[in-house]
C-alpha cells in the first residue's frame, strides 16, 4: 500500500513511522449493552442503569444498531466483515470503569483490512486500515473544583465505540492529520458518528517511532494517548519526532512507553513505562455469544451507504467539470457540499446552454470557496440556512451572472446579509445597489472619461496599451463602482480602437 521509500518525507534525515488508533462514538440511540440513552451533555449520572453502573446480577445485551453502524463503516472503508466475531473482557481497575473490565472485541474483530486514500503535498496515497472493532466507552472522572475527592460521571460508560486501527503506514504529521480528517468525514458522511471532537466522539491515540530511511525494522514505539484535535495531533507529533531524534542523536534510547500530550506546553510527557504496562488479562466474554453477521445484514448496510466523499469529489470533477483541488475542498464539509450541489442544480435548470452553465459553475464555485467557506469556518453551518440559504445565495449570484451586480458587490452584500440577518436581495433593494449596464449610460460615462483625458487617449493610440486599465478604472470610479466592468471594457475597446 505504501509508496516507495524515496517519496517519504524525512525529518532531520529520519523517517517517521506512525500508526493511529481512533475511538469514535457511534450514533446509536442507546448504549452498547443496555438501553440507556446515548447522548452528550446530560447532567452527571442521569443516563445510567444497573447494567452500565456494573451492578451485580446484570448482564450485557448487545445493541444490534451498533453492529449495523460498524458494518456500514467497514463497507465505506473497504474492510472485510467477519462472519463471526468475538467479544472479550479487558481488565483494569479505575473508577470510571464500573465492571472492572471493558467489553471489547479482541481475538476476532468485526472488521479487518480496508484503506483510506489521503492527499497531501507529497501526493496521493492509500493508508491501510488494520482493523475496526466494537467496544464500550468508559465514564469520566471529574477532579476539577472538588477538594480532596474525585467524582465519577458514568453517563458515557457503555457508549458504543468503534476503534479504528491503522497500519503503521503514516509518515508525517501532515499525513496523519489528512488521514484523520478524511476518516472523520467518512464516518460523518455515513452517519456512523457525529465525529464531534469537542464532545469526545472522535479521539485519537498516536503510535510513533523513527528510523533511518531504508531501514526495514521499526524503531521503539511511543504511544501518545487521547489527543483530541487535529491541531494537537500535529503539534504532538512534531514535538515527539524532535524528542525522539534528539534522544537517539544524543546516544540515548527511546523508551517503550505511553505518553500524554499537554496542550498548554505543547509537549508530551511520560505516563507509564513498559514495566508499568497493565496486564489486561483478556479472555472471552462469557455473557455474549459469538457475533454472527448475516449476508442480509451486510446487504442492507451496503444499500444504506450514501455517496462517499471520495466518490463525490470524483463526480464533481467528471460530471460538473470542477477542478480536483476545488472538489476536494467542497466535499470536506458535508453541509457545504450539499449547499454547493443544490446551487449547481438550480443553475443547471436556469442556464441557457453549456457556456452559460460553465460561467455559473465557475462563479458559484469561487463564491463558495471564498465567501461561504470563510463564513462557515468563522460562524458555523448556520450561515447555510436562513437569509443566506442556497436559494438566496443563488439569487445573488444570478444578479452577477446577468450583469446587474458586480462580483465584488455581491461579496460585500453577502457579508452584510449574514451580519444583518437579511436576505442579500433585500439588501440590494434597500441600498439601491444596481449595476450600471445600460449602453447609453455607460457610453456617456466612457465618453466623458475620454474627453477629460485627451493626453492619455493619444498615448494609448500611439501604442501605450497598458493605459487601458487606467480608463477602466476611471470609468468605474465615475460610476461609483456601479458600472458593469465587462461592458465598460467592450465600450472602451470600441471607442479607443475604432
Amino acid at each position, binding site marked *: 500500500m505504501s509508496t516507495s521509500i524515496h517519496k517519504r518525507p524525512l525529518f532531520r534525515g529520519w523517517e517517521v513511522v506512525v500508526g493511529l488508533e481512533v475511538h469514535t462514538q457511534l450514533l446509536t440511540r442507546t448504549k452498547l449493552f443496555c438501553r440507556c440513552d446515548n447522548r452528550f451533555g446530560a447532567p452527571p449520572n442521569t443516563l445510567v442503569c*444497573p447494567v452500565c*453502573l*456494573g*451492578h*451485580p*446480577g*446484570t*448482564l*450485557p*445485551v*448487545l445493541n444490534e444498531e451498533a453492529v449495523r453502524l460498524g458494518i456500514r463503516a467497514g463497507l465505506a472503508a473497504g474492510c472485510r466483515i467477519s462472519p463471526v466475531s468475538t467479544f472479550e*473482557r479487558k*481488565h483494569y*481497575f479505575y*473508577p470510571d470503569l*464500573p*465492571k*472492572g*473490565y471493558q467489553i471489547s472485541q479482541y481475538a476476532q474483530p468485526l472488521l479487518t483490512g480496508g484503506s483510506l486514500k489521503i492527499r497531501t503535498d507529497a501526493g496521493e496515497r492509500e493508508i491501510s486500515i488494520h482493523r475496526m472493532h466494537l467496544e464500550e466507552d468508559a465514564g469520566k472522572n471529574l477532579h476539577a473544583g472538588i477538594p480532596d475527592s*474525585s467524582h*465519577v460521571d458514568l453517563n458515557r460508560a457503555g457508549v458504543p465505540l468503534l476503534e479504528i486501527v491503522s497500519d503503521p503506514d503514516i509518515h508525517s504529521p501532515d499525513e496523519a492529520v489528512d488521514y484523520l480528517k478524511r476518516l472523520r468525514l467518512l464516518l460523518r458522511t455515513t452517519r456512523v458518528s457525529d465525529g464531534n471532537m469537542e464532545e469526545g466522539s472522535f479521539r485519537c491515540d498516536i503510535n510513533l517511532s523513527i528510523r533511518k530511511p531504508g531501514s526495514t525494522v521499526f524503531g521503539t514505539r511511543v504511544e501518545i494517548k487521547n489527543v483530541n484535535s487535529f491541531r494537537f495531533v500535529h503539534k504532538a507529533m512534531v514535538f515527539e519526532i524532535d524528542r525522539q531524534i534528539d534522544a537517539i542523536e544524543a546516544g540515548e534510547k527511546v523508551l517503550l512507553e505511553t505518553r500524554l500530550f499537554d496542550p498548554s506546553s505543547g509537549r508530551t510527557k511520560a505516563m507509564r513505562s513498559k514495566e508499568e504496562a497493565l*496486564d489486561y*488479562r483478556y*479472555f472471552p466474554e*462469557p*455473557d*455474549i*455469544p459469538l457475533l454472527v453477521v448475516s449476508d442480509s445484514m451486510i446487504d442492507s448496510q451496503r444499500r444504506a451507504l450514501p455517496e462517499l466523499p471520495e466518490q463525490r469529489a470524483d463526480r464533481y470533477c467528471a460530471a460538473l467539470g470542477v477542478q480536483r483541488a476545488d472538489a476536494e475542498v467542497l466535499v470536506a464539509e458535508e453541509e457545504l457540499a450539499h449547499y454547493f450541489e443544490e446551487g449547481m442544480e438550480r443553475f443547471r435548470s436556469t442556464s441557457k446552454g453549456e457556456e452559460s452553465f460553465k460561467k455559473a459553475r465557475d462563479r458559484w464555485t469561487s463564491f463558495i470557496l471564498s465567501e461561504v467557506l470563510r463564513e462557515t469556518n468563522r460562524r458555523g453551518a448556520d450561515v447555510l440556512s436562513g437569509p443566506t440559504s442556497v436559494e438566496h445565495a443563488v439569487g445573488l449570484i444570478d444578479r452577477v451572472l446577468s450583469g446587474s451586480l458586480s462580483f465584488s458587490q455581491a461579496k460585500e452584500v453577502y457579508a452584510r446579509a449574514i451580519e444583518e440577518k437579511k436576505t442579500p436581495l433585500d439588501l440590494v433593494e434597500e441600498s439601491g445597489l444596481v449595476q450600471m449596464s445600460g449602453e447609453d449610460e455607460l457610453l456617456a460615462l466612457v465618453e466623458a472619461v475620454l474627453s477629460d483625458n485627451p493626453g492619455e487617449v493619444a498615448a494609448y493610440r500611439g501604442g501605450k496599451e497598458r493605459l487601458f486599465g487606467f480608463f477602466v478604472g476611471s470609468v468605474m470610479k465615475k460610476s461609483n463602482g456601479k458600472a458593469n466592468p465587462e461592458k465598460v471594457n467592450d465600450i472602451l475597446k470600441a471607442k479607443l480602437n475604432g
Partner: protein
Amino acid sequence: MSNPFFSSLAEFAKGRDSRKFTIEEVARYFMSRTEQLNPSLNVCLSLNENAINRARQLDARLARNGADSPFFGYPIMIKDNLEMEGFPTTCASKILEGYISRRTATSVARLLSLGAIVLGKTNLDEFAMGSSTENSAFGPSKNPWNPTRVPGGSSGGSAAAVAAGLAPLSLGSDTGGSIRQPAAFCGVLGIKPTYGRISRSGLVAFSSSLDQIGPFSGSASDALEALVAMGGRDSLDMTTTERDPGEMRRDFAATRMEETQIGIPEVLFGEGLDPSIRKRLLELREALGGKGAREVPVTLPHSAYGINVYYLVATSEASSNLSRFDGVRYGFRVKNPADLRTMYEETRDAGFGDEVKRRILLGTFALSAGYQEAFYRKARKVQSLIRKDFMEAFQHCDAILTPTSPTPPFAFGEKTGDPLSMYLSDVYTITANLAGLPALSVPVGLDGQGLPVGAHLIGPPWSEGRLLKLAEFISALYPMPLPEVHAGHPTVKGPGDRG
C-alpha cells in the same frame, strides 16, 4: 419437606382452589416455622416482612378471579445471590453490605408473576464459592438431619430450607454442584438445568459460563413445574435458549423406565467413594434393572481432569466477575482510605472472605500474561474434550448415573483447613457444568449414620424432562423419612386448628 397442608405443588393448588386452606394460612405456617427454626439452622439471611400481606392480597384476588397457576400463592425461598427489587442481596459477603437490589432476577420474576410468594433469602457460601456454607460471612447453615453436619453448598441454605420444611420449594444456583451436592446432603431433589435454559439475569455471577439456576423440591414434578415456569428466552440474557420450556413437560410425560438406557461410568463407583454410599448406589442400579432399565457401560476419560479444569475456568471468570466489587459505587468501602489504590486494596481485603480471595488470586494468575496459555486456555481445551466425551456417551444412553457426592454430609470444620479435599466434594457434579448439561440429585435413602444419600443423573442437553421422570421413578423406590427437626414444631398451627 412435609407440612400439614399439602405434599406437592399440585395438591397445594387443589387445596387452595377448593378453599381447604387460605394462602395466608399457608404463608403464616411457613413464616412462623422459619422464625422458630432459623435461629438454630441459620438457613435464612433475610425474611420478607411483606410476605403475609402479599398472601392476603393473593387470597383476595383468588376470591375474585380464581387462580391460573399452581404457583399462585405458593411460598418459596431464594438463594441470596438472586436479586429481588427492594431487598438486600448479600451473596453472604461483607462486601455487599447495605446493598439493595434495583431489579428482580428473571427466574424469580417469572415465579412472582405467577403468584409465588418469596418468604426469604437463604444462606450460601460467599459468592457461591464453597461446598458447605462454611464460607458464609454470616455463619454456616446447619443440616436439618444432623446439626453437627454441613448442609452442603454453596446453596446449602436453600436445600436445608426445603429439608426442614421452611418452604416447599427454593431456588439455588449451581456452578460446579452447588445445587446437587446440598440436595444430596439434605435429602431433597435438586436440579441444575442445561446451560441457557434459565436466564441468569439477576443472579450474581460467579462463573458466567457455568452458572445455572435451579430448584430444590420434595418431588420431581414440582421441580418440573418450576423449570417450566422459569425457563425460556430472556431478552436480558443473551445466553438463554429459544427452546420452548414446555418441551420438558412433554418429555416428562413420555419417559418410561423400561425403555431407558442408563450409562454407568464404572470407574466412578470405585475408589474414593464412601462405602455406604456405594452400597446404596449399587442397590439402586439393581432396582432400576428390576424396573426394566438397561445399564450401558460408558467411559468419560477426560472427566478425570474435571476438578483441575473447573478450578481454572471458574476461578478465571470469578476473578473477572468480582472486579466490580471495588467500593466505588455500592456496597462496602473502607473508611478514609489514603488514596485510590488503598481504597481498592483495603476494601477488597476487608470485604471478601478467604475462599473468595483464594479464588480471585488463582483466577487472576490463570489469566495472566505468560500463564494464560498454560492454564486458562489449556483448561478450555480440556473442557471441550470433556464435553465431547459426554456427547459420545449419549449416543449410547439416555442418562448417566453416578453418586452425587463421594462422602456423606461432613462435620463442620472437617474440610475447612484443606481446600483441596473440599473441592473434591464436587468431583461427580462438576463435569455437568463444564459440559453445560442438565443434571440432578435425587435422594436414595439414608446411609448407616442416618444421613441422606443422593443419586446423580446427568442427561444430554435439554433432557430435563426425562431426567426428572427418572428421578420420580427413583423417588418411588425410596420413600424418605423426615429429618428429626420436623418433630420439633408443636406450636405451629396446622389446618385443623384455625383460629
